[in-house]
């Protein structure tokens, strides 16, 4: 077995062992499902509740992807505006930081009051959480121009736009993609946190977080785990998907995308 395959298989083996241990623990100690359900019981619940869980998964993912898309547009757009003027960057960037460091759970209730449409409110919350890594990374990337290359462009009479297009944007791409990786996970987190803040009362709340709350009121712990499982799986797939896209975009030239020898 090659080194690469071993590295890919090891976490799988680890996971299977952990699940088997979990299953054995529950059976031997005879734990009731409302304390700790066995993996098999969670799987059952997943199958039983699939129609409602799948619908909720769809709701959560729609908000997540909409937020991610908006974060890309917003983060990239703002970074490009900042790149045009240091003064603008200096005067606006601190506010982006404030937006970022204020915990979403604390702002979400306010947003839910001000934005009457719940879906729009959830989207806004997820966007606030997700756009910052893209903005800050892309801004750093646009500013990280190699002075020698900048001189080269200057020497051959490049216009401002040519410098942006031929030098600053390509140079910022790896930074942007690293930000995107973080933003992917954050938009899911943002969507879920906002759903929790919206609670079970609002009309728009029928995403996975809503299912978890709902199940917890009924002490249906296996169903809580089933919803949680779907959330984690989504997060992992989003992260991995963005990783694949990054590697495809950077593979030919960037060191980070080099295959391990």
């Amino acid at each position, binding site marked *: 077995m090659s080194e690469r395959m071993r590295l890919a298989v090891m976490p799988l083996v680890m996971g299977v062992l952990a699940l088997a241990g979990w299953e054995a623990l529950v059976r031997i100690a005879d734990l009731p499902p409302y304390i700790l359900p066995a993996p098999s019981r969670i799987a059952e619940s997943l199958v039983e509740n699939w129609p409602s869980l799948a619908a909720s998964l769809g709701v959560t993912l729609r908000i997540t992807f909409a937020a991610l898309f908006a974060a890309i547009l917003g983060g990239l757009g703002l970074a490009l505006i900042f790149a045009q003027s240091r003064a603008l960057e200096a005067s606006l960037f601190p506010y982006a930081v404030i937006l970022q460091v204020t915990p979403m759970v604390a702002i979400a209730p306010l947003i839910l009051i001000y934005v009457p449409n719940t879906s729009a409110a959830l989207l806004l919350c997820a966007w606030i959480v997700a756009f910052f890594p893209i903005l800050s990374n892309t801004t750093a990337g646009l500013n990280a121009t190699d002075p020698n290359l900048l*001189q080269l462009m200057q020497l*051959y009479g490049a216009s401002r736009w040519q410098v942006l297009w*031929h030098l600053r944007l*390509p140079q910022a791409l790896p930074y942007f993609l690293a930000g995107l990786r973080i933003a992917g996970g954050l938009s899911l987190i943002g969507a879920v946190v906002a759903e929790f803040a919206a609670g079970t009362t609002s009309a728009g709340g029928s995403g996975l977080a809503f299912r978890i709350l709902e199940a917890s009121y009924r002490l249906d712990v296996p169903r809580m785990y089933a919803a949680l499982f779907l959330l984690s799986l989504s997060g992992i797939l989003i992260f991995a998907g963005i990783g694949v896209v990054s590697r495809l975009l950077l593979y030919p030239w*960037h060191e980070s995308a080099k295959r391990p020898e």
Partner: protein
Amino acid sequence: MTGAAIVSLDRVGKVFEGGAAALEAVSLAIAAGSFTSIVGPSGCGKSTILRLMAGLAAPSSGRVVRSAQAARLGFVFQEPTLMPWRRVLGNAALPLRLQGVADADARALRALGQVGLAEAARLYPRQLSGGMKMRVSIARALATTPSLLLMDEPFAALDEITRARLGRDLRRLHHETGLSTVFVTHSVYESVFLSDRVVVMSPRPGRIVADLAIAGPALRDEGFRDDPAYHAQCRAVSAALRVAMGEQALV
């Protein structure tokens, strides 16, 4: 066929922010169509002189006068300075693309052929050795068919054979096109073999301490290296360099 100055420094001084003087009262006129080498110890300001000539830096005192011809400028930086996201061909064609030249790729490919890299056109910089990267950088400058070529230790990363071959080619190009060249090198032999004139600089703050005319055939081949006149001139430049660096002249 050397004529009026294509670029000249007139009592130029350069002081970097928060530093001592890098250059002191440097006067140097580069005759159009000439091949001038600059030799001197590390840190004496050779790169700074080239950057002043290119208009990439402003003098702290004195004047830099550039003729209209000097606008058609090729510059080979001390580092390869390639864009990692562009293939070799894309890098070599960059200046032409910026200027909107139609046959940019064809011209860049021809220049890559001149430095022996036509085969590597599709590769990315990270797939190249240090010497290959430097040759791409040379091709990028040649592709623009400049009238003034400023080269900062372009052959430092190359093996002896490639170095000699590119040197001969450069000298032939100079002979055929009357390309004015300013060439920075650490090799006394290279400077004498290539140039009509060798300028020797002192350690920082850089001053010109010797300015030697080199006699030799216009078109030079390996035979020139066996010429006693070549050896005598190498010794003279070496001696000037040793004096510049504060050693006793041995000659």
